């Protein structure tokens, strides 16, 4: 993706790391990765063809069969489902002549379902040729397809989504959306020196905003302590958690502050190369980011001797993901950047010691980098005036679902759920999924809990990674859980047994719930199997995949006891006789 000018700068990259970019080129050109392309790439990289095919088949934006001149990806996240996914799918199928999962006979349109594309505030939404189309309805779909048939390109007619920044702290207390001048934070580096930067971050208690909340200064300090070079700074812009779109808004509204945060990191740990791993769903943001990188170059804020600091050489390039939720896991992301399948590594080393190409690497989330540059710009003292003691600062939250004003809310830590619901106009909220499907479901009974980082055992506070999905009392919990389970079933990398098989098994169990065959014993098993996956899975995906199921069973007791019979001790089990013989009945003469 990077332009030719900077290609030379990245002298360390082995050829294999270019594999994903090469595959993207083929995908965009031929609308699939052909056998011949695989053969050529295998020869080029001295690999067997199956190894290339393994990479291709891992990412859902790479197709082995032609995916249509126009490739349409319909978002199938839970918010999209509740806002009319089915009707939109029908319309697309009718208008294009393609069935979901296939192309139409002429190969003009390919129609596919995909998990959350980061547009939860504009559902139903779709990507066509990787350009966003939002707030779809039947008429709009008809119009879009007609225009495409007339020869318009998706780029010309797409909707660049509104940023929907609905709330920032009053009295100019915003952190992320304060006025921004390029280079302001970088200008502080020379005086602060490395120790000063770490000190600022330590005092402001900044921690990883991807959801793990690891202290940022500690990560940087550890990476700094390794003498191996070169070192890498990676911005994790693979925002895959359904219901999250804060990084999208940051990258589109404040790309400079993100890049500046990366530069600060490079300065502190002594890194020479930076990469932004942008999820494939945000391909439409790539141009904007590259322009921003260009602007930094033009001002001497990237490249050799940045901001006049002797010996501080650093450059940033963009790397595109190709559709895989698990690549948000930092070691899977590293594998993906190396041109491999995005399978999380076994945790022998942390990336700060052995990361990209087994070299010291800092991987941080988009929001973390943005916060860093703001902390440097404002100073830790000013930053500490926001939030609550022990959890200072602000947090970006993406709100979607059943509320009047879905969008981005920059809240000061310490706000309660009730206050947030008030701000966004939550409509009859009943089930709130915090931090996405891998996070925690919250009942409205818990609305007085604060959102903060003080969520240690005796505290009742709740952390939020960024996603906040509201469901009203008419939504069916089992339906929500089925959507999550389907998501994890597809997005598991498939390496370890409990996650690969477990998510599939859990889904079968939920089907039983949906078909009304379950009793209390099934619920008990569901919980116990969920815990098994939690304890034995290899990475965070499997460990958190059943969180929402386990916690729903605990928190929504009234829902479950009302719907499912007590443990069935009768000697004859419930059985759907009609369904079991339905296939055979078709042969009745």
């Amino acid at each position: 993706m990077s332009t030719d000018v900077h290609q030379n700068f990245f002298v360390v990259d082995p050829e294999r790391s270019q594999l994903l970019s090469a595959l993207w080129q083929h995908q965009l050109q031929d609308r699939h990765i052909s056998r011949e392309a695989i053969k050529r790439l295998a020869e080029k990289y001295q690999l067997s063809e199956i190894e290339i095919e393994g990479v291709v088949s891992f990412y859902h934006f790479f197709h082995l069969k032609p995916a249509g001149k126009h490739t349409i990806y319909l978002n199938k996240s839970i918010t999209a489902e509740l806002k009319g996914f089915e009707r939109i799918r029908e319309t697309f199928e009718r208008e294009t002549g393609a069935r979901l999962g296939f192309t139409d006979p002429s190969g003009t349109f390919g129609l596919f379902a995909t998990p959350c594309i980061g547009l939860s505030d504009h559902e139903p939404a779709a990507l066509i040729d990787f350009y966003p189309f939002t707030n779809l309805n039947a008429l709009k779909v008809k119009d879009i397809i007609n225009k495409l048939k007339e020869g318009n390109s998706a780029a010309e007619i797409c909707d660049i989504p509104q940023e929907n920044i609905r709330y920032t702290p009053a009295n100019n207390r915003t952190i992320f959306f304060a006025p921004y001048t390029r280079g302001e934070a970088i200008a502080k580096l020379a005086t602060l020196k490395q120790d000063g930067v770490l000190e600022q971050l330590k005092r402001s208690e900044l921690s990883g905003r991807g959801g793990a909340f690891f202290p940022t200064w500690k990560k940087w300090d550890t990476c700094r302590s390794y003498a191996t070079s070169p070192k890498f700074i990676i911005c994790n812009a693979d925002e895959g958690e359904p219901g999250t779109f804060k990084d999208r808004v940051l990258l589109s509204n404040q790309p400079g502050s993100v890049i500046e945060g990366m530069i600060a990191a490079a300065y502190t740990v002594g890194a020479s190369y930076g990469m932004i791993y942008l999820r494939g769903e945000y391909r439409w943001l790539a141009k904007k980011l590259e322009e921003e990188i260009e602007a930094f170059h033009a001002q001497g804020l990237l490249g050799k001797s940045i901001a006049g600091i002797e010996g501080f050489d650093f450059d940033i390039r963009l790397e595109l993901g190709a559709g895989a939720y698990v690549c948000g896991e930092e070691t899977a992301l590293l594998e993906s950047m190396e041109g491999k399948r995005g399978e999380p590594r076994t945790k022998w080393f942390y990336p700060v010691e052995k990361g990209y190409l087994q070299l010291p690497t800092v991987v941080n989330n988009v929001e973390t980098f943005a916060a860093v540059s703001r902390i440097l710009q404002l100073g830790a003292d000013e930053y500490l005036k926001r939030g609550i003691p022990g959890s200072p600062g602000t947090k970006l939250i993406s709100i979607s679902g059943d509320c009047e004003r879905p969008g981005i809310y920059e809240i000061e830590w310490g706000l309660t759920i009730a206050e947030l619901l008030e701000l966004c106009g939550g409509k009859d909220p009943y089930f709130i999924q915090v931090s996405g499907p891998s996070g925690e479901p919250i009942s409205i009974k818990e609305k007085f809990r604060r959102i903060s980082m003080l969520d240690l055992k005796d505290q009742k506070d709740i952390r939020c990674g960024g996603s906040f999905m509201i469901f009203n009392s008419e939504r069916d919990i089992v339906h929500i859980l089925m959507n999550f389970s389907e998501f994890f079933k597809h997005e598991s990398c498939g390496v370890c047994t409990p996650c690969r098989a477990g998510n599939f098994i859990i889904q079968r169990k939920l089907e039983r719930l949906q078909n009304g065959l379950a009793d209390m014993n099934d619920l008990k098993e569901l919980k116990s199997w969920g815990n098994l996956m939690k304890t034995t899975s290899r990475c965070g995906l499997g460990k958190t995949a059943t969180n929402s199921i386990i916690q729903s069973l605990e928190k929504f007791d009234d829902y479950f006891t009302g719907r499912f019979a007590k443990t069935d001790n009768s000697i004859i089990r419930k059985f759907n006789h009609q369904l079991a013989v339905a296939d055979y009945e078709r042969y009745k003469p």
Partner: protein
Amino acid sequence: MATCSFWIDGKKYEAEEGTNLIDAAKENGVFIPSLCYFRHIDPPLGTCRTCTCKINGRNDPACTAYIHEGLQVEVNTPELVDMRKALVEMMFSEGNHFCPACEKSGNCNLQHMGYELGISVTRFPHLFKDHLIDYQPKRMIMEHNRCIKCKRCIEEVLTTDEKRVFMSLNRGNETMIGIDYEQEARLTDEQAVNAMNICPTGAIIVRGKSMAKPFGERAFDMVSAQKQFKHNILEKPNKGNFEKKTIATVSLAGCFGCHMSMLDIDEEIMDIAELVSFNKSPLTDIKNFTQRCHLGIVEGGCCNTENIETLKKFREMCDILVVMGECAVWGGLPAMRNTIPLGECLEEAYLNCVTSEQGENTVPYHEDLPKILDRIYSCNEIVKVDYMIPGCPPTATHIWKVVKSLLWGEDYSLLYSEFKYD
């Protein structure tokens, strides 16, 4: 290298620093089940998770841990034992493992682990996902139904110029191990056989080589890795005053093999005939129940509505219901059709079959005929089953030990050779 002390379940052991925990435990006589772990692959794969233990207070696989001074490991707590068992059960329900029809039976690590952990039935529903059997490679057959995606072959089988032959394809529940036909053809015979041998299941089969060792003489046929199965034989039970009991038996969607096996008890059958009387059973040819029975023994699962009716009748008429054999426990061989829609099976058998006569090609359907179910159901999915005897077939001694225990409360212990069947 220095020798270190480490603790397993509170007991102190010694091993060289840096030894893999699984190996160190084994050297010290502690059995930690494992499937993907293979001494030669470094770093270990950590894919199957069967060796999950509590290591320094955290649940982690033993294969990715190394001995250092003071290492604290919990292996045999009830929760951990159950957790590991569940993981192996998960593999059985994920794939389609029909051991009696498998070339690898007896040499299969997965099957062996099933015995070692005493698995009689999986707690999970069988997924019955249709998998490919790939006959295209020059020398190999890839049986994807049996693959547990351990990745041993990916890391270990390389051509002489270091190119991979195997690689994971797809993602999530669609993950499978693909084979590169071109590279496979370039393997030496020796390398190909090695690929088959390191596969912990029968997923990689080399044509003409898979039966090199006859059944009965294979690696896991008679030997357990654990002590408890080698000893612990209870003395012959005393023959006291036994009250005479009534038994009913039936074969549903099975092959009658379990009934045949039951008769394999030879002359002891004379003793048993004194102790029990048979009511409804193919052995007596009594068609309908004439009285309530103490014990019902069912062979086979349910493939049609008649099976379901019979099974329900058994449940109603018997105090204790025991099912015997793989078919009754989870579907067994008839469940091979569970991965294929019923319509396809029927059409293949009756409509598109080469031997069907012109004009005679109809799928049998009559109100007097039982209706065929969409898939094979295990007995436990239809009625509550009290006990299950796995095996294909279970040995006679096993069946009768269970019967005696249930009817007269007699203690019994099973030998490894008695529950190792298929």
